[in-house]
């Protein structure tokens, strides 16, 4: 993975020194809160319901073992012994004191991490496929481009005061695991007719109060032109994005109001005028970065591991977990281990200091020191030999982390909601907990098959409810929590926005409503038809009937 050179180190240290000075100026009164707020936000510091919250960037979701240990240490020393992994592949701390934050940022800098631009109206931390570099279906590892984008977007002089926040997602595989169609810019790698890999540039996707699927701005762009082209997109947005209404300020609204055709024309015009003066520098920099992402020295292994097959025969729980949580790897004899952070009754995405340390240890022993954070709030060990899977599972199982529900009903996304978030209109976590208890039986989950349930505590949709097969949105109805259910969303290469089924439910009613939806699906599904396929075939009516007919 990428390692800082002295420039990167210096850059982050100067930034933390600058922030230390800004905090001092705020505490002394030299800066007012109005002036300080945008500065703290650009360093990832929010003020939430109970306290400050620090959002630390995990660039494109990749962490090393020492970085994970440092995150665990920070949780222990400066927070309350845990952290929350988010749908942005980041980690959040819920209780840090402002006066400690310069020290926390110094500790992050020690392990080549920072919180730059995890908030504010700037280009946010770039996200990608959690299986980047190891997925069997991948064209190429997207992380060199992600790292180039990380550097390029860091304290960008022109694009740090945009109309609104700006999120870029990248995927190097045909199967989109990075939800590129619901980001401000999505980059999807394809080969052109000559077999050359390049980028489809999508723009204007997003969730929030006006969910939209992105439009394709360019079908295929040679890699060397990517940064100049992105600069053109950003500049058109910076100049013309609405600034009169923060709910209409995202790029999706600009594209919607201009029309995709006109937006494309403006981008191409700007791109032509600005030209590509520095591409050689960028290409050499990209090549330098790419060398860091060379895969570890794989052992020459048979794809079938006898140890693994024997262990599966000897242990049903292990076999289930291996079937559900382990994914196919590029290299023969290797596997991708997905660690679900969704125990029954747990808080989705939360991990304690001990859990973080355990995963760091396992990655050191079994996974080339690497860990990934997924946008479904889980963790990944990307380089595990099949013959080591049983040992990994045993260690996870002892810690209660061998939860075999990946991609199934129990693997629920939930944003912090009103238990932590100042913007929330309802709680999210208790709903996830109630559903997880009701469907605790794994056999039942396997019978139901692949299913995503995502929960947001307000219309900002951090819980990605719009793109869930079953989405749940918490709203406030006369001071009471209420939940709207949507069906049919998806965030993959066939992305769609879920549709509201009907009137909402109180929190207590939600698990039964989910039960009815599941029962309806089971009653009408075709042979090996998934929930989403069934919904797309039959539409909302049977589900509406099940939920509302007798009421």
């Amino acid at each position, binding site marked *: 993975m990428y390692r800082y050179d002295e420039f990167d180190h210096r850059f982050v240290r100067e930034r933390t020194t600058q922030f230390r000075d800004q905090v001092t100026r705020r*505490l002394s009164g030299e800066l007012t809160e109005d002036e300080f707020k945008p500065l703290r936000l650009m360093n990832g510091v929010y003020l939430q319901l109970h*306290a400050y919250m620090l959002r630390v960037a995990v660039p494109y979701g990749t962490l090393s073992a020492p970085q994970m240990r440092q995150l665990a240490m920070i949780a222990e020393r400066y927070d309350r012994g845990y952290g929350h992994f988010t749908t942005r592949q980041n980690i959040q701390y819920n*209780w840090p004191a402002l006066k400690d934050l310069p020290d926390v940022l110094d500790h992050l800098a020690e392990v080549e991490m920072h919180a730059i631009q995890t908030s504010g109206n700037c280009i946010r931390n770039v996200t990608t496929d959690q299986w980047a570099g190891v997925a069997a279906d991948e064209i190429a590892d997207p992380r060199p481009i992600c790292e180039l984008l990380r550097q390029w977007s860091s304290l960008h002089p022109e694009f740090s005061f945009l109309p609104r926040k700006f999120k870029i997602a990248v995927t190097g595989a045909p199967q989109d695991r990075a939800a590129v169609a619901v980001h401000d810019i999505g980059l999807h790698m394809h080969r052109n007719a000559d077999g050359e890999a390049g980028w489809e540039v999508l723009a204007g996707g997003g969730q929030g109060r006006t969910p939209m699927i992105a439009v394709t701005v360019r079908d295929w762009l040679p890699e060397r032109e990517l940064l100049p082209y992105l600069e053109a997109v950003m500049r058109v947005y910076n100049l013309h994005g609405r600034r009169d209404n923060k709910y209409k300020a995202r790029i999706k609204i600009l594209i919607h109001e201009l029309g995709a055709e006109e937006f494309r024309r403006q981008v191409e015009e700007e791109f032509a005028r600005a030209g590509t003066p520095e591409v050689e520098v960028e290409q050499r920099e990209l090549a330098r970065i790419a060398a860091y992402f060379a895969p570890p020295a794989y052992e020459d292994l048979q794809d079938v591991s006898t140890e693994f097959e024997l262990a599966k025969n000897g242990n049903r729980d292990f076999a289930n977990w291996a079937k559900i949580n382990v994914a196919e790897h590029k290299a023969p004899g290797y596997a991708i281990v997905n660690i679900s952070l969704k125990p029954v009754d747990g808080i989705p995405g939360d991990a304690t200091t001990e859990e973080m340390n355990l995963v760091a240890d396992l990655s050191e022993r079994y996974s080339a020191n690497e860990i990934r954070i997924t946008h479904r709030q889980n963790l990944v060990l990307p380089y595990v030999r099949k013959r080591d899977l049983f040992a990994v599972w045993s260690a996870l199982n002892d810690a209660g982390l061998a939860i075999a529900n990946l991609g199934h009903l129990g693997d629920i996304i939930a944003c912090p909601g009103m238990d932590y978030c100042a913007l929330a209109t309802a709680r999210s976590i208790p709903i996830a907990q109630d559903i997880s208890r009701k469907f605790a039986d794994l056999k039942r989950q396997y019978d139901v098959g692949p299913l995503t349930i995502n929960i947001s505590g307000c219309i900002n949709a951090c819980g990605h409810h719009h793109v869930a097969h079953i989405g749940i949105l918490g709203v406030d109805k006369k001071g009471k929590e209420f939940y709207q259910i949507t069906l049919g969303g998806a965030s993959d290469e066939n992305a769609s926005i879920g549709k509201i089924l009907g009137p909402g439910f109180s929190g207590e009613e939600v698990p039964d409503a989910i039960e009815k939806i599941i029962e309806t699906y089971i009653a009408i599904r075709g042979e090996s038809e998934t929930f989403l396929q069934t919904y797309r075939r039959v539409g909302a009516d049977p589900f509406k009937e099940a939920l509302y007919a007798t009421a």
Partner: protein
Amino acid sequence: MTGKILTANRVDDGLVVFLNGRGEWAEALSEAWLGEHDSTIAEFEDIASAAGAGTEVTDVYLFDAERDGDEFVPAHIRERIRALGPTVRMDLGKQAEGIGGAFNALG
């Protein structure tokens, strides 16, 4: 009796505080000053704008609450959770320190 309570977050550690009768910012809601008359509430607004420009607290605002015995119960669930701590982590926040209140977040 219903009234209004002035609340904020402390600048240096971010924790939730409430204005008490001596003009100080207290951590426990039970120590807050419940403004029940228009004149008190007008005074709160002056205190809020002065405090918001200072260095001790930030994000100062009023919320509705009701007196119940010797404690105050916020009208809205958001403020109840803020005064207690996360409902999913009873071991954290004011409720864990014994300064939350006897009321339930869910009302």
